[in-house]
């Protein structure tokens, strides 16, 4: 019996899905990973594949579709052979990304957000891809390309029209620089793989050597070793290391709570979902300091008593997966991972990497855990917190990449050493992702307490009117505040340091950030789901010249409701960019306002455009009189 080509494709798809599901152990908590890999192989998620995935994982089809529909990188409709995503951070726009995107659309005969007629290419925008220091950036079939220019757009368009596979494109297109401009204790650590783990284990034996000599026996030696984790925990507590993801929670306290929580097992999760627009430090740490990170995770596992770890890698950094997996494989060979690490009985730990699929909210730790469990990335209700009820309801610590790297340093050098650096409440150093209007964008690592002015001087920024510290959810500081310091007690930050000179329109900056929040709202709670879109509506209305004082009042009203009732930080901070810039750069808003107290967003004459087009009329009678 002959099989039709369609049958053959279906057969092939089925084999593929079965293989991927088997590789993820038929585990429904790996749904997102299965979806991501099936899409990578098929270009999108065809309906029969979703049905098969649901059946093989024993999940309701609606739930599988619900997860597929949550993540912006997953597509249930066919897309182009080449899938182009332009990074849409404000720095990309400042570097001309909007013009470059329309150039590419023009060359390839495609409308933004659609697939070209011949199915060759689809072009759209995506939230910040973490290439702000070498933008404008884009992803082509998941691979990053930076430093876009008209020339690059022309080259890329030609490669696509020639239908050259992305794997065969010139390698220099995909070159991503680290751009480390100022290294301190972390970026200049000089440690070899495993150094931090060895140091942690030694802290256990130091505990033993402090005991009286007559107690020395193999039994005491074992007890001594058991003291190791506590000794490491003590050092981390003494260091006063605080979370580098933005919230600044004390790491030692988090670890201790997890260690003391009751559970069947414990988990260490590295939050590598670096989604705050303007931040790219984790990209560099993952690229060039992966061993330090894995050392830090292993030290954390040793301290809290975990045997399994996860790295939740943001989808935009999926291109690093292969390299990171090979580092993990090497570490297994070196006995830095696996059973009895470095010969320590019972010290079992391994790390698995899960890749996200385009969702900013998943950077919130409980949403990250939901995503890691193969669900929609919606923040949980807390309490209970992850330290007691985390991944699969077990005690779990979730730490930022930079925090875990710093913890590795603490394991080697000790808590007192670490605490001696930085300020009273913010010990150690902070890596800043410097981008925007400056001569030398890139990574700058400083001890906490550095002033905004110092950073601006070091990176060669001139005529600066504002700096957005810690991205859209952070703080906008103006010239009068450049004496403020980067520290938890003054300007807390997850790392983004985005510079705007006097040529920039701060209203447009706030509008870009508002678009970001509306796009990334998970939609769980009413105030954020509806409120962020209402905010964007107000901003677009003001931009269109129809804004009045009424709209500014509405923004203030929305802010109040978001602050009071939003489910997570995204909603709480969604108004910050507008309120900050409205306060500090009010003329940029007021010159757009119409003086009347209220004007409708609805343009009656514009609404008749379609009717005019259909009737072929454009005479004066087909227009409403211009209102005074």
């Amino acid at each position, binding site marked *: 019996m002959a099989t039709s080509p369609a049958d053959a494709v279906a057969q092939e798809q089925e084999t593929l899905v079965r293989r991927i599901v088997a590789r993820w152990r038929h585990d429904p908590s790996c749904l997102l990973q299965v979806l991501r890999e099936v899409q990578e192989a098929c270009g999108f998620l065809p309906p029969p594949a979703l049905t098969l995935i649901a059946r093989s994982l024993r999940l*309701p089809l609606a739930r599988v579709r619900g997860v597929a529909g949550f993540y912006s990188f997953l597509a249930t409709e066919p897309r182009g052979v080449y899938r182009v995503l332009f990074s849409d951070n404000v720095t990309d726009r400042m570097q001309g990304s909007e013009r470059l995107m329309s150039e590419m659309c023009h060359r390839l005969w495609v409308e933004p957000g659609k697939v070209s007629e011949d199915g060759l290419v689809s072009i759209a925008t995506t939230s910040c891809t973490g290439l702000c220091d070498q933008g404008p950036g884009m992803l082509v079939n998941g691979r990053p390309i930076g430093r876009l220019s008209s020339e690059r757009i022309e080259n890329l368009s030609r490669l696509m029209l020639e239908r050259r596979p992305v794997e065969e494109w010139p390698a220099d297109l995909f070159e991503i620089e680290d751009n480390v401009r100022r290294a301190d204790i972390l970026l200049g650590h000089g440690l070899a793989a495993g150094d931090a783990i060895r140091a942690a284990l030694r802290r256990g034996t130091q505990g033993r050597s402090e005991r009286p000599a007559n107690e020395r026996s193999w039994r005491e030696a074992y007890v001594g070793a058991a003291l190791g984790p506590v000794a490491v925990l003590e050092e981390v507590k003494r260091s006063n290391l605080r979370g580098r993801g933005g919230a600044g929670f004390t790491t030692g306290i988090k670890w201790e709570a997890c260690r003391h929580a009751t559970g069947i097992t414990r988990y260490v999760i590295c939050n590598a979902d670096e989604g705050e627009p303007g931040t790219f430090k984790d990209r560099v740490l993952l690229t060039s300091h992966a061993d330090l990170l894995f050392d830090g995770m292993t030290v954390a596992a040793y301290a809290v008593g975990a045997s399994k770890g996860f790295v939740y890698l943001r989808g935009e950094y999926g291109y690093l997966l292969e390299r990171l997996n090979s580092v993990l494989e090497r570490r297994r060979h070196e006995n830095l991972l696996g059973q009895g690490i470095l010969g320590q009985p019972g010290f079992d730990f391994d790390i698995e990497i899960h890749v996200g699929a385009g969702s900013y909210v998943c950077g919130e730790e409980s949403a990250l855990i939901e995503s890691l469990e193969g669900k*929609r990335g919606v923040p949980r209700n807390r309490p209970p917190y992850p330290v007691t009820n985390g991944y699969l309801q077990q005690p779990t610590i979730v730490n930022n990449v930079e925090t875990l790297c710093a913890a590795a340093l603490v394991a080697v050098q000790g808590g007192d050493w670490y605490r001696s650096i930085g300020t009273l409440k913010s010990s150690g150093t902070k890596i800043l992702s410097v981008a925007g209007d400056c001569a030398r964008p890139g990574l700058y690592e400083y001890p906490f307490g550095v002033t905004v002015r110092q950073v601006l001087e070091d990176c060669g920024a001139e005529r600066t009117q504002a700096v957005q510290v810690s991205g859209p959810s952070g703080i906008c500081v103006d010239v009068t505040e450049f004496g403020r310091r980067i520290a938890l007690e003054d300007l807390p930050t997850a790392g983004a340091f985005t510079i705007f000179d006097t040529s920039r329109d701060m209203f447009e900056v706030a509008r870009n950030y508002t678009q970001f929040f509306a796009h990334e709202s998970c939609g769980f*709670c009413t105030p954020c789901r509806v409120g962020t879109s209402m905010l964007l509506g107000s901003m677009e209305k003001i931009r269109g010249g129809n804004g009045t004082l009424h709209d500014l009042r*509405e923004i203030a009203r929305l802010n109040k409701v978001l602050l*009071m009732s939003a489910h997570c930080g995204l909603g709480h901070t969604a108004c910050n960019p507008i309120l900050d810039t409205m306060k500090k750069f009010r003329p940029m808003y007021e010159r757009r306002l119409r003086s009347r107290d209220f004007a409708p967003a609805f343009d009656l004459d514009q609404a008749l455009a379609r009717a005019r087009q259909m009737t072929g009329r454009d005479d004066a009678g087909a227009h409403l009189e211009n209102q005074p």
Partner: protein
Amino acid sequence: MNELPTFLLDGEEVPFTPGQTVLQAALTAGRYIPHLCYHPEFTPHGSCKVCTAKVNGRTAASCTTPAEAAVEVESNTEELNDTRRTLVQMLFAEGNHFCPSCEKSGNCVLQALGYDLGVMTAGFRHLFPDRPVDASHPEILLDLNRCILCELCVRASRDVDGKSVFALAGRGLTKHLIVNSESGRLADTDVAVTDKAVAVCPVGVILRKRVGFAVPIGERRFDLRPISARALEDAPRKPGESDRA
């Protein structure tokens, strides 16, 4: 029997059993806090945020906040009621709600909350989303224009009916209800008109066919008594305890 711990709600003591949330304890004690996505028969999930209250000065959804001894909860304040009004306005603006022509009018929780909280105006630009109606099922109509994404049908179908007929897809403003069938049509799911998921819909999304307007408007549930009174009548009580109202 004063063994139960208590917290203060608007200055008055409310007893609670450990494990109860603030809203659950309040309703049990005959005290009303406006709420929408909470239902006494289901685990609270806290998405609508209408029940937002101040617990020791910090705002939180009272349906998911565990009750704790001696905390002070503020609920019936102008500031909080204003937030609630705005949230209800947001839900009205987000969907396509035309009360006069809706079969659920008078039995609708969103409408009843609007009346009870004194929502007098739309407040926001309506979004007028393009949403489908699914009339494929012989006995059940699904009108997604009125969906407020409370997830009660999702929870009921999964936890009570054991079917998972309903789920959510999309995110942000594009979040929407979907049904569990390959065709995406309700008729092809295993939903039954007797399912809890069908009965639990607080608005006019999941409607039984051919029973419309059996009770005349004006004589319906919230036409007779406001939702603040009805919610207390529905609240779980300990056996033998009579309504305080």
